[in-house]
């Protein structure tokens, strides 16, 4: 049972904003390492941040953080919001000696993103590098092929004794801002995590907010599956970060597979490969955005999935949708997102949750 602040920001109708405090928290989250199945470092930050702002909190059998902030009033909808704590990365699987480790990927990483990168391993963030054969020693034929994963090694230096097979790690990128942009690793989904923390701190009184900081999204939406079963909410909303592939095409022709674009606001999902969003919820978000003049875009229907894909199939079915912050270079060392898109994402969610009533689900799904 948390200690409640006697006068809540949400009571005074104060909307959450993104200022230095929130950016610093995002920085802390992005610089932390939490690979699928080993989310402890981010879990600790989340537990610390939400303490005192929720009525109940527990860590479940998979490591999900499940927290509830109850609303006031009689007929409150139970709204589950999820953000996944895990990021893609590596697991060390064999010690080749002299500080060299064979590693495997955890989650989807394009192997062309690996050579020449600095990495960090384990809770102690032990530094390492991923090198490759020097160009001088390669042939032209060889350079036409991708460098196979099983030839790459993480090099922690010959004197290392702190790192061992089983340890997890990822790129060593440090968070920074550049003009309007945020540049960091794991914007997918630390942006969702930090947004959910803010929503908890300003939870609208009219709903029961069931917050799920999920694990193992990147390897099959596994945390969300069990969390939704446990919560059995009336509505499910996944907060994620979605790719913006909005670069120029090599042939100068129009790019029509951009998925989302930076700077156009939060992305509302109509469909991805995991879920056909409940149209009632899509309409609710669109109406909210239109009435408050919050910019938004639709994520292009197509491949990729997130926690909503698991949420909507739990129990006897949960009406679900997702809202994501666009980001470039997903699942690579450095992702880029716009601060403004994040702000508008938070604003859209807060506004939408504040005007949510049970009437939304009164009609049949259509």
């Amino acid at each position, binding site marked *: 049972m948390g200690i409640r602040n006697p006068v809540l920001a949400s009571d005074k109708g104060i909307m959450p904003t993104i200022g230095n405090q929130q950016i610093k928290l995002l920085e802390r989250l992005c610089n932390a390492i939490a690979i*699928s*199945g*080993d*989310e*402890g470092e981010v*879990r*600790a930050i989340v537990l610390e941040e939400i303490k005192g702002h929720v009525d109940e909190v527990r*860590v*479940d*059998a*998979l*490591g*999900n953080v499940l927290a509830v902030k109850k609303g006031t009033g009689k007929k409150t909808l139970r709204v589950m919001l999820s953000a996944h704590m895990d990021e893609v990365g590596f*697991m*060390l*699987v*064999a010690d080749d000696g002299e500080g060299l480790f*064979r590693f*495997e*990927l*955890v*989650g989807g990483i394009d192997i062309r993103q690996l050579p020449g990168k600095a990495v960090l391993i384990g809770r102690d963030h032990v530094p390492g590098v991923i090198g490759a054969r020097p160009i001088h020693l390669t042939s032209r034929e060889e350079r036409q092929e991708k460098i196979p994963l*099983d030839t790459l090694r993480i090099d922690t230096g010959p004197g290392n004794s702190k790192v061992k*097979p*089983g340890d997890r790690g990822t790129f060593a990128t440090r968070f920074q801002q550049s003009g309007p942009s945020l540049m960091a690793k794991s914007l997918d989904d630390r942006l969702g995590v930090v947004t959910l923390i803010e929503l908890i701190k300003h939870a609208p009184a009219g709903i029961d907010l069931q917050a799920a900081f999920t*694990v*193992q999204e990147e*390897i*099959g939406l*596994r945390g969300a*599956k*069990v969390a939704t*079963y*446990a919560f059995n909410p009336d509505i499910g909303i996944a907060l994620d970060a979605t790719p913006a592939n909005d670069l120029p095409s090599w042939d100068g022709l129009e790019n029509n597979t951009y998925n989302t674009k930076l700077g156009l606001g939060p992305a509302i999902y109509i469909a991805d490969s995991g879920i056909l969003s409940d149209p009632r919820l899509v309409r609710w978000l669109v109406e909210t955005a239109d009435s408050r003049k919050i910019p938004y875009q639709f994520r292009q229907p197509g491949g990729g999935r997130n926690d909503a894909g698991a949420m909507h199939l739990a129990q006897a079915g949960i009406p679900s949708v997702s809202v994501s912050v666009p980001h470039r270079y997903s699942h690579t060392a450095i992702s880029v997102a716009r601060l403004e898109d994040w702000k508008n994402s938070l604003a859209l969610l807060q506004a939408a949750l504040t005007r949510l009533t049970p009437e939304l689900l009164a009609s049949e799904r259509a």
Partner: protein
Amino acid sequence: MTELIPFLKDLISAPGLSGYEDPVTKIIEDKWRPLVNEISRGKTGSLQGLRHGTGEAPRPSVMVATHMDAIGLMVTGITEGFLRISEVGGVDARILPGTPVNVFSTGAGVAKVLHGLVTQPSAPLLPEQERDGPVALGNLLVDTGLLPRQVTELVRTGDLVSFAQSPVELSGETLSGHSLDNRASVGALTVCLEELQTRTHSWDVWAVATSQEEVGLLGASSSTYQIHPTIAIVVDVTFAKGPGTSDWQAFPLGKGPTIAMGPNMHPALHKAMQGMADSLELPYALEFSPSHSGTDGWATQVSAEGIPTLVVGIPLRYMHMPVEVVAIKDIQRAGRLLAGFISSLGPDFMEKMVWDK
């Protein structure tokens, strides 16, 4: 367990392809009946045995799951007396040509076992790209030696085909045959149950021989949901070092079971099992499982609101071939490790089940 080898031979000689596990289920049921308080079948074919613990009710429970189904083939049609086949579970078609098989025919209302072989038609009868290379399963045929008229009477679409290789004891206390994936683990669980006869355990113990692991973990999914155990331990075979299998994913034969770690396993459960192996001075290896464990554990962990799960491995060579090889000692060690672990479970064990130290 002195009769382990004969029991294993019985197990792997009984048919029991995914979805059709009845013959092997009966053998396991007969073996387990004196070792458990209750025994029953799950809705989708798993065998579920329960040993009551000595603790006060309501007692926590540990479910140990070992799949009993085996891979094989299924008849998809008959062409000029030859059987067309598809796989049940993962079969590398390249190992099939020339393989002796048993056809479990059910035509004409009579069940009959026919002897046959998988044949690779001669080159002119194959598509160009297969004349000199691997032949796809769809172009391999089973010849039973019977005339087409006889085949049509006896065999129906959907009839099952299994490898006919008999068990062979190799040197160094090893056993070779098909279906050691995963009947070897059923053997280990049986060793565990026998050990528990002479020990006390405060927790309830569910011994489950699951169905249909090879085709989608159905038995594990159904049984875990029905039983709703406090923790789940899955025992499955893992890769043993051997020809073509020598990297980090493979473990020496005869040097003990493996204890796996990764997202599919609860770290505290892994630590407790490792501690038990150390205290029993049993040899074992750490198995690294970066994501999908490839076992029933993938289903048990996400049942209902989530079940802490662990996977213990028994090294095995030539997985999914008619000539799989296991070391008897590894099976015995796995069984003793499980028994030791189960006996050690006390009323406060779950307090240790936290993700972060």
